[in-house]
């Protein structure tokens, strides 16, 4: 056993001790701190995906709209007792750049302690959804009309300048739970509220995910050529209906594996894009959550 491995094991033991201690201390009065839940689509959604994000086929993508319906958000303790939550669903257009304060879902004052269970749900769109910061009533109406949880519009450009537009509404609702991400340089499950502190909990939307060429592989990369080829009537717009007509097994391997991992119900490019739309939700930048299908969705 190497020294590194031994030290990792010992640190693991220390972590376990700390976790147990935190549980014991739950009833103590630790003071209070503030949590502000925000959302950001990063540069990929606000500014675009340059060609170097597509290392194999060198397309680029510029979103003009990227609507997300945050159906629920909850911050809970180790026993899943919810201490703070979103009052009602909010719709955001992630292409809109916030100036000054980030796009905010809510702010809550909580006891200073670990809150390990943070979850949020994207969709389904409901009657009580309203426009969040920088979104409009038109955006909400668009989601409601399409019964969509996520809606994206944009233009993809090939290396030779060919443009393909897309305008896709995704209806599946997805629960993101057990979220963990970086806080003060450490990976934290949920959020650690400190006495007198203000923690920003960012629900991060990853715009590159809609173009990954494998649902499960570590080697997945964004591509667009297979999507562009799906434009059967060659009118310059790639529709979900056209993607539904492309069985994955007909895609040449040099245009991507389009592997579906262990999923059994992803057979066409349309199925594939709808599945990718359920992976866009992240936590505090590169942090992640377990994504679950919402029953009946």
């Amino acid at each position, binding site marked *: 056993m190497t020294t590194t491995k031994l030290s990792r094991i*010992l640190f693991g033991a220390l972590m*376990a001790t700390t976790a147990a201690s935190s549980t014991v201390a739950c009833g103590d009065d630790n003071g209070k701190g503030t949590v502000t839940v925000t959302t950001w689509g990063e540069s990929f959604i606000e500014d675009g995906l340059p060609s170097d994000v597509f290392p194999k086929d060198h397309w680029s993508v510029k979103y003009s709209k990227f609507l997300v319906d945050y159906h629920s958000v909850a911050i809970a303790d180790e026993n899943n007792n919810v201490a703070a939550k979103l009052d009602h669903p909010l719709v955001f257009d992630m292409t809109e750049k916030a100036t000054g304060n980030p796009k905010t879902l809510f702010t809550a004052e909580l006891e200073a302690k670990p809150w390990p269970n943070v979850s949020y749900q994207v969709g389904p769109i409901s009657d009580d959804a309203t426009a969040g910061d920088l979104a409009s009533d038109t955006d909400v109406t668009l989601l409601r009309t399409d019964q969509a949880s996520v809606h994206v519009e944009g233009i993809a450009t090939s290396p030779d300048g060919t443009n393909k537009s897309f305008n896709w509404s995704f209806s599946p609702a997805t629960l993101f739970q057990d979220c963990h991400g970086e806080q003060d340089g450490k990976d934290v499950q949920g959020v650690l509220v400190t006495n007198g502190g203000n923690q920003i909990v960012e629900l991060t939307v990853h715009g590159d995910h809609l173009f990954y060429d494998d*649902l499960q592989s570590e080697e997945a990369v964004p591509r667009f050529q297979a999507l562009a080829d799906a434009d059967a009537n060659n009118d310059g717009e790639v529709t979900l209906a056209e993607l539904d007509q492309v069985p994955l097994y007909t895609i040449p391997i040099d245009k991507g594996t389009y592997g579906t991992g262990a999923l059994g119900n992803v057979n066409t490019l349309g199925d594939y894009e709808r599945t990718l739309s359920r992976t866009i939700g992240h936590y505090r930048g590169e942090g992640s959550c377990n994504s*679950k*299908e919402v029953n009946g969705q």
Partner: protein
Amino acid sequence: MTNWYLAKVALTVGLCATGCSSSGDGSGTTGHAISLKTRAEVKDDLTQAKTNALGWSVTISEAHLSVGPLYYYAGDPVLSQRHMDKRPLRNAFAMIGDWLVGPAFAHPGHYIAGAAMGQMLTPTTLDLLAGSVNLADGDGVTGSTNSAKFTWQSPPQGERAAALESHVILTKGVAIKGATTIHFIAKADEPEVHDGDDKAEVAGCAFGSTPGESGVNMDGNGTVTLTLSPSVWFDEVDFSYVAPGGDAGAPTPDANGVVDIAGTLAWEGFIRGVKKGTGYEFSYAK
């Protein structure tokens, strides 16, 4: 030192450090070594024809499968629906286990195997028309288990290995649609079943209390059942690509009128089917 050994050490050290082993809800303990018998079953009634998604009625007359080691993990399958509530301390221990064993990196939002919870390491070859069969015993640790990895063994091993003729899957059967009847051979070699990470495996299969469900607390010695569904392999096979007068490049039947679909779009559909996790479901029972 294997990751598996480190996983056991991680769980053991974590439990010793806290001085308690209760899962917190009184339902059991986490991290004790257990033995796991292993069983393979076939979900489909292979004596009956099954109509696939493209309207072909497929009857399988021969199906051999090379099985490699099987692994069970704490991580959830991608976009799973878990059928068990989390236990309060499970996350902390799973995280420690993940950190120590160095879980496979996956792009955030995609499958992360997490802590190793069990395994069966003895390769074998299955005749799927022979019915259920016991595989070698495996071992594991108690705790929440949610996903599994199926692997193919190449070259095949076990008493029936010769039937595979060095392939990892070999099937024969007949497909009928309207007036068209096609006697076929569909097979796959090891490189052809590689996943996106270039491994001959299906990672992130559901592991639960019943086939297809995800999430079970392995709380003692028990049996892990691998439930196989060959119908999934054929669900997207469009045999029209190998029908007489079909594609210009359609293969010629042999002297017995049997078509080897290799290299055709029908075969591409077959290969995609054999890589689907829904064809390999894992369940645990005491």
